[in-house]
């Protein structure tokens, strides 16, 4: 069998060497002890002796002088008489030892999980803090990985404690049935829906000028109810509600508007707002809100709405995230109309701007239709002349 001639290890830390020169030619006969080739490693030149005798054979793909190869790489063969020369040398070896999997040595074992103890565990540092802040930490639950009470836990307990202390001196007002009902509906909406709010900056300058010229002067909210109704005609998806697994697209457009009363937020409804002029809407909304404020609204005047508008502009609010009035699918929040710098026909000029915030229920309505609804609303607000009829 052919004997391997390899790149030898010539030093205890040597991992590779450079073949410098063969001192025997392929085909030449070699005796034990003959110098076969020279190797450079660590800047030193070494002569390598043959361990064995035979005819030297260097295949065509063997490393050539100048090549740097790992220790153990086959450079050629010594053949016995009549032996067939191997055609190729194998590729350089990977050091087998490095393939041996090594078990990670575990770090010294730490404390047993704090939750295994009978009493809560608290770090010495946290205990000091508890002392400083006057916190009774023994009833705390630790948030550390092993359940240990930490500094943060003590601090959190300290602030909760101080909040609790304040409420004991506060005035106590029981919730009215109305408020409780409203609270219930809001929570339901928030919990069951998938609300997303889109905001849009509207240039209301034209609307402001229009309103200035109109007689009698009408409310912005009334214009918005009318524009919203038109937009809902064009985007019926926003005029829908969810019943079980069905989306109901309502034929009528009945827009509720939020009125802030002592009893809480009430939402009277303007029915068929899309068939009424802005003046008609104005007369109706004035009547409804008057009665709302006096607590005289009939129940049916607050039901059946298919969309709601809530306007906090009078309170100086710019934008907000209104909560949908269930089972409706969307609500429009209107912010204040105020003069702000804007780019108009290439120049920065003061314009009347307002932000509208549309919260829609993503279970029924997708972002695309909602955005297009807002785009329509913008058009109507920014070019309002079409609807005043």
């Amino acid at each position, binding site marked *: 069998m052919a004997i391997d001639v390899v790149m030898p290890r010539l030093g205890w830390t040597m991992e590779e060497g450079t073949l410098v020169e063969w001192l025997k030619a392929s085909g030449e006969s070699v005796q034990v002890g003959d110098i076969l080739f020279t190797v450079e490693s660590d800047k030193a030149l070494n002569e390598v002796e043959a361990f064995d005798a035979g005819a030297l054979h260097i295949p065509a793909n063997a490393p050539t002088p100048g090549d740097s190869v790992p220790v153990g790489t086959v450079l050629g063969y010594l053949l016995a008489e009549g032996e067939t020369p191997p055609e190729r040398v194998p590729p350089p070896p990977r050091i087998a030892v490095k393939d041996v999997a090594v078990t990670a040595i575990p770090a010294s074992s*730490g*404390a*047993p999980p704090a939750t295994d103890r009978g009493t809560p*565990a608290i*770090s*010495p540092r946290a205990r000091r803090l508890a002392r400083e802040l006057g916190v009774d930490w023994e009833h705390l639950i630790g948030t550390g990985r092993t359940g*240990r009470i930490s500094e943060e836990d003590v601090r959190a307990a300290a602030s909760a404690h101080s909040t609790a202390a304040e409420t004991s001196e506060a005035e106590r007002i029981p919730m009215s049935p109305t408020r409780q009902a409203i609270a219930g509906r809001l929570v339901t909406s928030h919990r069951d829906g998938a609300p997303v709010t889109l905001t849009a900056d509207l240039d209301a300058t034209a609307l402001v000028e229009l309103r200035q010229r109109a007689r009698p002067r009408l409310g912005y909210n009334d214009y918005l109810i009318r524009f919203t109704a038109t937009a809902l005609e064009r985007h019926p998806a926003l005029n829908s509600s969810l019943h079980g697994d069905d989306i109901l697209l309502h034929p009528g457009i009945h827009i509720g508007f939020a009125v802030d009363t002592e009893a809480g937020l009430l939402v009277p409804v303007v029915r068929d707002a899309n068939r009424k002029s802005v003046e008609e809407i104005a007369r109706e909304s004035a009547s409804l809100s008057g009665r709302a404020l006096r607590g005289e609204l009939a129940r049916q005047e607050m039901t059946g709405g298919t969309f709601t508008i809530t306007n906090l502009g009078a309170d100086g609010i710019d934008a907000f995230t209104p909560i949908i009035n269930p089972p409706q699918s969307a609500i429009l929040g209107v912010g204040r109309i105020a003069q702000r710098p804007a780019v108009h026909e290439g120049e920065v000029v003061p314009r009347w701007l307002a932000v509208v915030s549309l919260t829609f229920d993503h279970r029924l309505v997708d972002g695309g239709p909602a955005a297009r609804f807002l785009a329509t609303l913008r058009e109507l607000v920014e070019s309002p002349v079409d609807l005043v009829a």
Partner: protein
Amino acid sequence: MAGREITYTEAAREALTAAMERDPTIFVLGEGIGERGGNFNTTLGLYERFGPRRLRDTPICERGFVGLCAGAAMTGTRPVVDFMFIDFILDAVGELTNQIAKIQYMSSGRLKMPVLLRGCVGIGGGHATHHSGSYYPLFVNVPGFRVVVPTTPHDAKGLMATALRGDDPVLYLEHKSLLNIRGEVPEEDFQIPFGEARVCREGTDLTIVAVGPLVPRSLAAADALDAEGISVEVIDPRTLAPLDLDTILSSLRKTGKLLVADESFGPCGIGAEIGAQVMERGFDDLAAPVRRLNGVHTPTPYSLPLEAAVAPSADQVAAAVRELADE
């Protein structure tokens, strides 16, 4: 009936004698341990009983006879090397660490290494720096050794008996100041397992783990502190390798405060090891940092006032306890 009282040296010798009776392969080597019976009377009377081959006086060549004992232990006998002063063991460190500690491992357990290495340690009597050392951290740190530090006659006997039955090399370190203390010791043969600490005194406010002479000094301090209303628990680990940390942790759970009192040097001493292990395994029980009281980190001076200044006293233990109790 009151138990019989003997000295620490007598108790160790009793264990050695009983073992040599039982096991004819046990022999003792050392300087002056033959006919003379040892500088510290460790082998008094044994020469007459067991003869010169089993009580063999050596030339002054610690490396030589420790290396020889490694070979003997591998070939069916149980050597006891009696160093007289443990300081002399340092000449044999190569044979101990490269040979004795490693041969069981290298031979995958086919060769045993039952060598007992005993000698007197510690400060007291003005013996100066070549006769006052302890040096146990090296043997606790290197894998392969057991390190035993009995502090009472009872424990001296029980631990010696265990050492002479096991397969491992054992450092048996006897503090000079304890050799003549008296205590109750059973007459019959008995063994104390390695790795079992002893709670010498129960308490509730603070735990002292004390090594060697610091055990009686801590007990004395504890008595004084009792009168001041500080209740101190004192633990004697008895063996440093293996170390009984469970007993220390149980005590810490109760008291929350730990002082390690040791005449040896602080750096890399058993107090550092206990502190690290307590931090890892008993962190949540700590009401205060682990404190250490160690000998001053200097060679041991000769003159008595200087010598007294480097070794911790009972008063210093008490002062350390008072400080720790306040934290």
